């Protein structure tokens, strides 16, 4: 992300260090002057680091039954439990699991599914977009027609459907284990169209430029022209879509898990935690619901804002 579009206004005089060059590029200049982007980036960074290092940060392992004490159930945040005297920063749920720890581990799953799904969507979309744009003809027609058909349906619906089918195909005893992978597959497959459309559009423009002609003349194969010459030039818009897709994928994952067709309660993501927390909303244990929901909102909102800024920064024409 950092060294993508180095500005062309660089003066080559005393050859500054690489870090300094990046820091002074247009891209970073725009970043340094967008307070919203800086705050969002910090929030995203903190949350991602917290998720990655969850086993080190989390005071308890919520998935280890040995450390759980049912007596600790429903402890309000920051208060001592009436029976055991233990205190928990964000309270505990019905089974006595520390809410702070479950959020850290849940965010790990949410982010993992989100990143993997976007990566999958990107891989499929960029490949098909490149092929459609460069080869043209009936290959293009077929790919873009499929994209059109899929675009008729909201992606969350497509994801639900893929989840349902995949669930039907996997044997019952593996369903819980496979749920995470099925989720990635469902969200990834439901989201490739955006990438394919944009990459195809850019490829159509790029393939008539002189450098491609030159590569053709020296006898480069179609495959290597697509991969080595065109691909690097279509990556900017892909990066923007990937960021926005990431927020959408995280929300999609949370939605599916909330609806009970996503991450299972044994491996809860943020959505599953909200689903669990919702049951206790009426009985007054608000913290089981509020903290996972707030985390999800912070994550989705800051990634969205970052994506908004990135779109403007990488494409000044859109301003």
């Amino acid at each position, binding site marked *: 992300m950092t060294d993508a579009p180095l500005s062309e206004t660089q003066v080559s005089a005393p050859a500054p260090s690489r870090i300094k060059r990046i820091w002074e590029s247009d891209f970073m200049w725009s970043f340094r002057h967008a307070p919203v982007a800086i705050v969002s980036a910090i929030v995203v960074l903190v949350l991602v680091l917290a998720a990655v290092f969850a086993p080190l940060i989390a005071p308890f392992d919520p998935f280890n039954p040995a450390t759980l004490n049912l007596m600790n159930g429903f402890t309000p945040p920051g208060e001592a439990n009436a029976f055991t005297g233990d205190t928990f920063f964000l309270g505990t749920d019905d089974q006595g699991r520390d809410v702070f720890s479950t959020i850290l581990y849940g965010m790990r799953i949410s982010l993992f599914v989100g990143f993997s799904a976007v990566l999958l969507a990107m891989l499929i979309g960029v490949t098909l977009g490149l092929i459609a744009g460069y080869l043209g003809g009936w290959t293009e027609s077929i790919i873009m*027609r499929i994209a*059109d*058909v899929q675009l*008729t*349906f*909201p992606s*969350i*619906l497509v994801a*639900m*459907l893929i*989840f*349902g*089918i995949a*669930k*039907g*195909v996997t044997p019952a005893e593996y369903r819980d284990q496979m749920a995470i992978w099925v989720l990635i597959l469902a969200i990834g497959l439901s989201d490739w169209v955006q990438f394919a459309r944009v990459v195809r559009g850019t490829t159509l423009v790029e393939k008539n430029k002189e450098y491609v002609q030159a590569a053709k003349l020296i006898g480069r194969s179609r495959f290597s022209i697509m991969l080595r010459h065109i691909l690097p030039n279509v990556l900017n818009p892909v990066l923007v879509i990937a960021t926005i897709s990431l*927020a959408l994928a995280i*929300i999609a994952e*949370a*939605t599916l898990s*909330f*609806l*009970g*067709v996503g991450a299972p309660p044994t491996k809860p993501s943020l959505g599953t935690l*909200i689903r669990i927390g*919702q049951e206790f*909303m*009426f009985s007054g244990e*608000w913290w089981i*619901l509020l903290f996972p*929901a707030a985390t*999800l*909102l912070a994550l*989705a*909102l800051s990634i*969205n804002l970052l994506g908004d800024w990135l779109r403007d920064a990488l494409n000044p024409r859109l301003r």
Partner: protein
Amino acid sequence: MLAYIIRRVAQSALVLLVVGLVAFAMFRFVGDPIENMLGQERTMEDVERLRENLGLDQPFVVQYYKFLENAVQGNFGLSYRQGRPVADILLERLPATLELAFVSGLLALLGGIALGIFTAIRKRGVTANIIMTASLIGVSLPTFLIGILLIYVFSVELGWLPSFGRGQTVQIGGWSTGFLTQSGLQALVLPAITLGLYQMTLIMRLVRTEMLEVLRMDYIRFARARGIKDRAINFRHALKNTLVPVITITGLQLGSIIAFAIITETVFQWPGVGLLFINAVQFVDIPVMAAYLMMISVMFVSINLIVDMLYFAIDPRLRVDRTAGGH
């Protein structure tokens, strides 16, 4: 023009055929239909007989054709879970979803247009800025969180409105309506807001952008120069030209309202087709999933088609390049 219409209709038919193929493949290959219908105690003869009865011994293409034939007649077989014809279950649940979608669509349209005009006219006002910021947060807020938030405030804390179900319904013919009872109307409020809010922000932002664009035009400036009152300019001259894209986008959003109803219906345990579908996904009830998929795609495809035609009819400027230029 005619060629364009014919091509669009053919395209729509193709989409439906493809969706039909997906639905059929689900039926045929996800789980064994025989396994699902016969219990533990079955003989080889039973299996053979059922296989023949269901036509599962015939070639794939013949089976697909049969499936389409049945689907057109609304025959999707029995639900694995409830053991009743899927079509009956769907018809029973459909009024709830349509009523919800109608009310939230109306809310999104009226609210979106009103707020859009307001934020465009008072571009620099404090209230307009607050509304714009709120809409940005609204876009990032997942639908189910909005629903939970509303339940928490209005059902748990204030106790004003019910948090689940449809309240009392009145049966008119085959249609069960919640419009005629007080509890039915009360139960409608929170789900309708939940479902409509996201679309409302979309429409609002669209109206605002279009309106700002139109207000910059020369004829508006000319109207101002002629001394026409602001009110007349805003509503009679500007708004009219803003509404063309709004109508089409709203039409297309209608489809996603029906899809997003799945989420809202789950949060509020609203007994519509969306809740039915999500339960079907949870229990891998393939006939219900397939039938829902077919039903919703017929809706989507016809909405898209109508909107496209409408676009043609409303805005003459588009006729030329649409017929000339590809897609």
